[in-house]
Each structure stands twice: as C-alpha cells, then as structure tokens.
C-alpha cells in the first residue's frame, strides 16, 4: 500500500461522512438540501454554530453596559518610608515626584486592594443595594447578578468593577460597569467616597500614632515640673527659708565680716600692746571685743556646719544640700519639658508630612454610549478559539484514526 493511498482519505476527514451519506442518498431522487448538508458538517456544529449563538447573544440579547470611569492619585506630602519595596518602586518610577509630593505607591496599592475587597463591596452594598443595581429589568439574563450572598456579590463585583494602578504615574483608574449610566456613576462615586474615607482613616492613624507618643512625653515632663515646684514650695514652707543659697551667702558674708573685725581687733591689740601698759583699760576693751568676736564666729560656725547642734540651731549645711537637690530637680524637669515640647513640634511637622491625600483627577462620568459588552471582540475571539481548538481536535482525531486504518 502506498502512503498516498493511506493518507488521501484522511486529509479530508470532514468530507467522508458527508460524501458517503451523499453517495448513499444520490440514488434517491430528493437530494439533501445544501443547508442540511452544511448543518451536518462537524465544523458547522462545533465552530460556526456556537459562534453564531455567541454573536446572536451579543448582538441580539445582551443588554448594553455603561462604564463610568474615575481616576485618582493617592499622595502624601512627605516621602513615604514604605520599606524597600516602595523605595524600589520609587527608583523604578524615576522622576515622578512632580505632583505636589511623592506618590505613595504603597498606599495606592492598599487603596486598590481595599476597592476590590469584600469590605468595600459591603460598604457599597449598604448604600446602594448592589443586587438591585445589577438586577435592573433591562439587564439580560446572562449578565445580571444571580446571587445575593455577600461573597458571590463580591465575585460579581470584581467582574464589573476594575481597579488598575499604573505604577509609572501612580494614577489609579476605577471602572464601574452597570446597566444604567446613572447607576455606574453613583457606584463609582460611592466607591470613591469609601476610598477617600479609608485614606483619611489611614492618615489619621499615622498622625495619631506619631503625635500620641510625643504627647505622652510632654505629660510626663509636665508632671515632673509640677512635682519639683511643689517640692520646692514645701521645702520653703517647712524651713521658713526662701532661698537657702542666699542664706548661706549671707551667713558667709557675715562670717567674713566677723573674721575681718576679729583680725582687725587682734591687730589693734598687738599694736596697742606695744605702747600701752598691760593693765590699760583700753587693752581690756579690745580683748573683750576679740573674745566676743571669737564667740560669735564659733557660734556661727556651729550653726552652719555642726550636725550635732541642737534643734534650735538649724543646720544650714543640710538645708543647703536639700535645697540644691530640689533646685537641680527643678532644672532637669524644666529641661525635659523643653525637649518634649520640641519633639512634639517635630512630630507635628512629621505628621503634617505624613498626611495622605486622595486627589481625584477624573470625576466619575455619566456614560452616554455603552462600551460593554464588547460584542465584536468577544465574538471574534470565541470564533478564533473554536477554530483553533477544532483544528487541533481534527488533527488529533485524524492521527488516532490513522492507527486504526
């Protein structure tokens, strides 16, 4: 057997059934009408017919779907310290920081995630009743929503609402499809509002976190200042001394004066002894003065420093030490308060920079012409896919049959 004999019937697989049935019917006077012959061909059944059905659906039945599109950017005033990924993205994005501060890709991503989450769907559902919205009477039976369970609504939602983030420009595009232009617009508006409130919440949270810490720091410092002042007041009331340092100063001055007077009196005594008789009353007076001065000095000294002195003579040294400790505490508390105030100021500025904004670039529009369903594209791609699948199937089946021949 030659190969050509083997192959020739196989190359024309679709024909045999038709031609053989044709042969069988040829003797009969009424030949099969061409339409019937065409209909019985597998290519018609498997490719043309489904494509025709699809085309019929798209051009005859499918309800028009209106698209409402909105675009927005999420940006922050400062740079976003969003980890290495954000840094990488920023590096890849290059010089895109034109639009009033850096785009925050991380935040834009989280907004995009939010918009396709069950949470967003439920928020929108509360306001608009999505099932109602996608089950309008004009919606065709295939495209309308069939379910009312939240998860299935969310799945349908993902089908009808697309959120795309262009990482180069940071612009997020929100596309909403529904069967009425007003519905699309309203849903897009609702979603935008939800996204805006999310951005505000995120921003609020970031600010709150930064500020709260600084605020706490200030409270602690303030309490310390108040306590130190109160302790000082208590001390003053207790010791009946306004300024221990001043008192010490005064005591020192007094002692200096006494010492000076004593030295002077001693010099005078020595000088007078040179030319006076020892029993001269003037000498005695000088001696008395010296004695009085010495007593006075020793009394002063014991009053200041002798810790064993009785209660009446308050110990100035101890008093001074306590006083100085209190003064030091007050000074530290003041400094802490000052630095806490400064850091609060910095935190406030930081928070200002961390503030996020969602700026709308394109407001949701009211569609006039229904862009969906894409009748031609869908029909053509289904036809093409079927043709290819049919071709492969045909080749495979022919291949199988070659073995049985």
């Amino acid at each position, binding site marked *: *057997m*030659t*190969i050509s004999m*083997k*192959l020739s019937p196989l*190359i024309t697989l679709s024909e*045999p*059934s038709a031609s*053989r049935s044709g042969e069988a019917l040829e003797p009969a006077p009424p030949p099969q009408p061409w339409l019937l012959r065409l209909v019985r061909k597998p290519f018609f059944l498997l490719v043309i017919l489904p494509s025709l059905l699809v085309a019929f659906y798209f051009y005859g039945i499918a309800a028009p779907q209106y698209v409402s599109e909105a675009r927005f950017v999420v940006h922050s005033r400062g740079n976003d310290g969003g980890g290495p990924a954000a840094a990488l*993205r920023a590096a*890849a*994005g290059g010089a895109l920081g034109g639009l009033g501060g850096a785009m925050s890709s991380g935040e834009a991503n989280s907004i995009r995630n939010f918009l396709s989450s069950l949470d967003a769907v439920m928020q929108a559902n509360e306001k608009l009743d999505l099932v109602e919205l996608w089950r309008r009477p004009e919606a065709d039976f295939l495209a309308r929503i069939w379910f009312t369970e939240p998860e299935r609504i969310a799945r349908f939602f993902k089908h009808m609402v697309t959120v795309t983030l262009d*990482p*180069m420009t940071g612009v997020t595009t929100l596309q909403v499809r529904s069967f009425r232009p007003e519905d699309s617009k309203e849903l897009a508006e609702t979603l935008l509002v939800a996204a805006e409130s999310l951005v505000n919440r995120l921003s609020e949270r970031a600010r709150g976190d930064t500020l709260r810490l600084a605020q706490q720091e200030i409270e602690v410092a303030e309490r310390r200042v108040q306590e130190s002042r109160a302790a000082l007041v208590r001390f003053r009331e207790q010791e009946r001394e306004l300024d221990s340092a001043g008192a010490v100063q005064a005591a020192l001055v007094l002692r200096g004066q006494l010492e000076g007077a004593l030295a002077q009196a001693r010099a005078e005594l020595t000088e007078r002894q040179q030319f006076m008789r020892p029993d001269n009353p003037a000498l005695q007076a000088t001696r008395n003065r010296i004695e009085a001065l010495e007593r006075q000095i020793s009394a002063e000294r014991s009053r200041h420093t002798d810790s064993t002195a009785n209660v009446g003579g308050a110990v100035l040294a101890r008093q001074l030490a306590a006083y100085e400790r209190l003064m030091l505490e007050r000074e530290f508390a003041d400094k802490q308060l000052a630095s806490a105030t400064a850091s609060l100021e910095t935190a406030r500025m930081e928070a200002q920079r961390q503030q996020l904004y969602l700026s709308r670039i394109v407001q949701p529009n009211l569609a006039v012409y229904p862009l969906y369903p894409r009748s031609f594209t869908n029909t053509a791609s289904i036809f093409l*896919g079927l043709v*290819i*699948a049919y*071709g*492969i199937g045909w*080749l*495979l*089946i*022919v*291949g*199988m*049959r*070659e*073995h*049985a*021949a």
Partner: protein
Amino acid sequence: MSFKEEVALTLRGARMQRRVIGALIIRELHSRFGQHYYGYIWLFFEPLLLGSAIGLVHYLNDHSAIFGPFEFFAAGYILYFIFRGILNRATAAIRSNLHLLYHRTVTLPDIFFARHLIETISCIGVMFVFMFALFVVNGEMVEDPTKIILAFIGMALLTQGMALMAAAATEAMEGMERAVHAFTYLTLPICGMFFLVEWLPESLQELALYVPMVHLFELMRDGQFGSRFQAHYDLGYVAAWILVTHLLGLAALRITRQRLGLE
C-alpha cells in the same frame, strides 16, 4: 458511515495509538540508555545533577536572595530542563526514527508524544525527589505542589507545540537545527529561570509577560513560595500559546509526513 461507526473507529484508533506510544516509550528508553537499569537512573539523575549544580553555584555566589537561591535556581533549572530537553531533541527526532514510519501504525506525532512523555514524567519525578530532599533538609514544605505540577505539565505542552513546529521546520529547511539550538540558548535569560517578574522594573515586567515561559516559571514559584512574593501569571495566555503552537505544529507534521513519502 454513521456517527456511531465513526466514534467506534476513532476509539479503536485511540486505543491503538496508546499502545503504539507505550511501545515507543519502551523503545526510546532502550535506545537512549541501553538495557541496563543505571540507564534509567541516569534519566532521573541528569536533570537532578544539573539542577543541583546550578543551584549550588548560585548558592555559593549569592546569599542575599529572598528565597534560598538553591531552591530557586535548582527548581528553575528542572523546569527549564523540560523545555531544553524536548526542544533540543526534537530536531533529530524525525531523522533518527525515520525507519519506524515503515510501520503503518506509527505516525510522526506518536514519536514526539512518546519522547515528551518520558521527559515530562522524569522531570516531574525529579522535582518530587527534589522537593522531598528539601523537605528533609530544610524541614520546609513547598506551599502548593499542585501548582508546581501544573507548571510542569504546562511547560511540557507548550514545549511540545514548539517542538512539533521545530521538527517540521528542520525537515523543511537545512540548518534549522542550529537555529533551534540557538533559540533554546537565547531563551535562557528571558524565560524566567533567573528572575521573578516582581524583581523587574515596571517597563520590563510587561515585556517579560509576553514570554509564555515566564508565566509557567511564575506559576511554579507561586507553588514553591507563593506567600513570599507577588506572582504574575495568566494561564489563559499560556493556553492560547499551547493551542496555537499545537495547531501549527500538528499541521506542519502532516505536511512533513507527506513530503517524506516513504514507499
């Protein structure tokens, strides 16, 4: 012939084809590895050794990667091995098996199907051995084995389509063989073995996703450690590639068969 008869004929052919392919697999194994058992072991060891070697080189080179570089590159190489193994062998397949065509029941696609089954099954087996070994060493299981197997099957199918085309082209044109070999080497840097789409700059990501192999590598890595990165793949796109290459490849093989003639 009625519809029933046609179906019966087709089924009879399918059964026959299965047996032919089974026989061809045995024959191919014998001719490739001899009749000793170590030949079969080599079938598994070739990708395993090469994969491990490549993984090791990267492991020694680079400790900073997010995932263990060994897992990353060795597994990548095993998947690439399907592509390379099938496509490189395809060019010689028709010539070396020409005499088989004297048997009426043996057709050109059978030869390819048999070879590709061997490659695919051995590579999936190697991958399992590999995953098990990593599990023993690291104590860390891959996240989704189904995705990994799916990636291997997808890669085998995609490469099969390309291999059918390559074989037909080799028969039609002198020197195509070299072009095919060059092609497999040129695809090495762009096929996704050495990178994740995520690592690329945005502008290149879009370009990379035009390469169908990249999707399969992403799919496999999603199965390996999907929770640690954002995988980018579209199986519909891969399916379209598989379908188109198969259509063209099978059709081209039919033409080739006629040209070969063989009395």
